[in-house]
């Protein structure tokens, strides 16, 4: 029973990271109908930036803040400089361009920072917390991870709902034609969308890297998990992303925990299995049923 609780809680923490990646994918998908395959690569790159800043300044928080800022800048640059060029071309062009971007970022990281595994420091202690004498499977840092994603998600949700910029983003996502005819500078809004997605990715990168080590491909698996979470949530719904991330994190934690020595190797396989099953049974995601469809 204690074991079950531990697996559930630690799974939920990882799930929050997947949720952050999923949210960043949803943000871009809603605005442009494009799946950003470079999202993981962008997060990896900004985490390298963070690690450099942490080594130079000795301050974790300086690195944390710079990583998020780098995410914003990198997201905006990728949209303006690269993805924008595919506007009006077949959708496949944009897909190939983001895959190219991923390869470019991973290659660049290898050249600049080397290919070896580097450890990334956590913000807080990673020693498991206990209730009485019972370890509950999460550390102070894990609590921080969950809280950081939760706070960011709620802040995003509130900004989307209550600010003019948020309304512009939603209007553009739902109906770019009417947005343009109403005078919204849609191109600028899309850049903002990518910048925010870059921020979420960067957050996921610094939060997950203490557990995974950092290397040029380190975010590939996390991206697949995040993508799976987004698909479970239907690719449209921010709430779906968070729920999808949590579900996936917890299921993968059970797989890794209960299947003994084989477990850790099976998690990626199970994640892909879940992805395939969801796409076959509910291609619109688990949360699509109740939503209104435009006719």
């Amino acid at each position: 029973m204690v074991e079950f609780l531990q697996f559930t809680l630690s799974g939920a923490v990882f799930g929050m990271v997947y949720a952050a990646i999923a949210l960043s994918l949803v943000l871009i998908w809603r605005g442009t109908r494009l799946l950003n395959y470079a999202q993981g690569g962008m997060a990896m790159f900004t985490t390298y930036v963070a690690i450099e800043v942490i080594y130079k300044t000795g301050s974790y928080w300086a690195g944390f803040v710079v990583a998020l800022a780098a995410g914003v800048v990198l997201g905006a640059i990728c949209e303006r400089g690269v993805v924008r060029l595919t506007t009006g071309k077949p959708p496949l062009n944009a897909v190939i361009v983001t895959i190219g971007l991923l390869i470019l970022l991973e290659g660049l990281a290898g050249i600049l920072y080397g290919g070896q595994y580097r450890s990334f420091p956590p913000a807080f202690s990673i020693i498991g917390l206990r209730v009485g004498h019972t370890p509950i499977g999460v550390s102070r840092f894990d609590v921080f991870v969950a809280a950081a994603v939760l706070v960011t998600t709620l802040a995003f949700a509130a900004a989307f709902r209550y600010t003019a910029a948020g309304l512009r983003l939603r209007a553009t996502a739902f109906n770019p034609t009417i947005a343009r005819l109403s005078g919204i500078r849609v191109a600028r809004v899309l850049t903002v969308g990518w910048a925010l997605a870059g921020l979420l990715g960067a957050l996921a990168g610094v939060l997950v890297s203490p557990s995974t080590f950092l290397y040029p491909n380190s975010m590939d698996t996390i991206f697949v998990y995040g993508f799976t979470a987004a698909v479970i949530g239907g690719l449209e719904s921010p709430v779906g992303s968070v729920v999808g991330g949590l579900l996936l994190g917890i299921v993968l934690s059970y797989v890794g925990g209960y299947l003994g020595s084989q477990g850790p190797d099976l998690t990626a396989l199970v994640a892909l299995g879940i992805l395939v099953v969801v796409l076959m049974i509910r291609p619109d995601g688990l949360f699509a049923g109740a939503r209104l469809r435009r006719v």
Partner: protein
Amino acid sequence: MSDALEVDGLVAGYGEVIALDDVHVSAEAGAITAVLGANGAGKTTLLRAISGMIKPRRGRVLLDGADMAGRSPEQMVRAGVAHVPEGQGVIAELTVEENLRIGMMSRRPNRAERSAALDESYERFRPLADRRRKLASTLSGGERQMLVIARALLARPRVLLLDEPSLGLAPRVMAQVMDLVVRLSREQGLTIVLVEQNARSALAVADHGLVLNLGRVVAAADAPTLAADVALRHHYLGF
């Protein structure tokens, strides 16, 4: 009489297709100009080329004498041209009030101006006031048309381009919409370009009209003259 909007020698199309060929339009300031013609005559393309949704290949779009051809829709809205596309173009996933707020995005009003403008909209379009917090998807066809026109007006345009505002509406509601169009022109002095499939009802409210056929202007005159031209009605207008 002066023209608020003049289109001169406009050529526009999609890919290989030429949808508009050497089109001239004069829209008198404060009057209603009806653009008539069959499906595929180029009516919608004309509005899209004026509002910047597509770039004209040749020709000029003169707004109070200044050539605006090739400007983006964002720029055209700021210059005072509001385009209401066909199909009751509300954003169904947003609330009524959010739809209205989008109409003000081109002007950046402050909080007080914004709520005053919204109140004014609700005053004029009373059914919208009761539903301000409801999703636009819950509105009836007539209310949707009301909402898109209200939204367009919030951009404070001088020229209003209306694409088939009566499409898909019940006859009674359609009459209300047409009545609204007339009042916008008479009371507010808006210059209106009204695209309509239903030539009879459009000519009943319009001051001037022009008939498009296969991308060319085949007739342009004041509305009573067009309505009285039996051959024209027979060939192009279907009544």
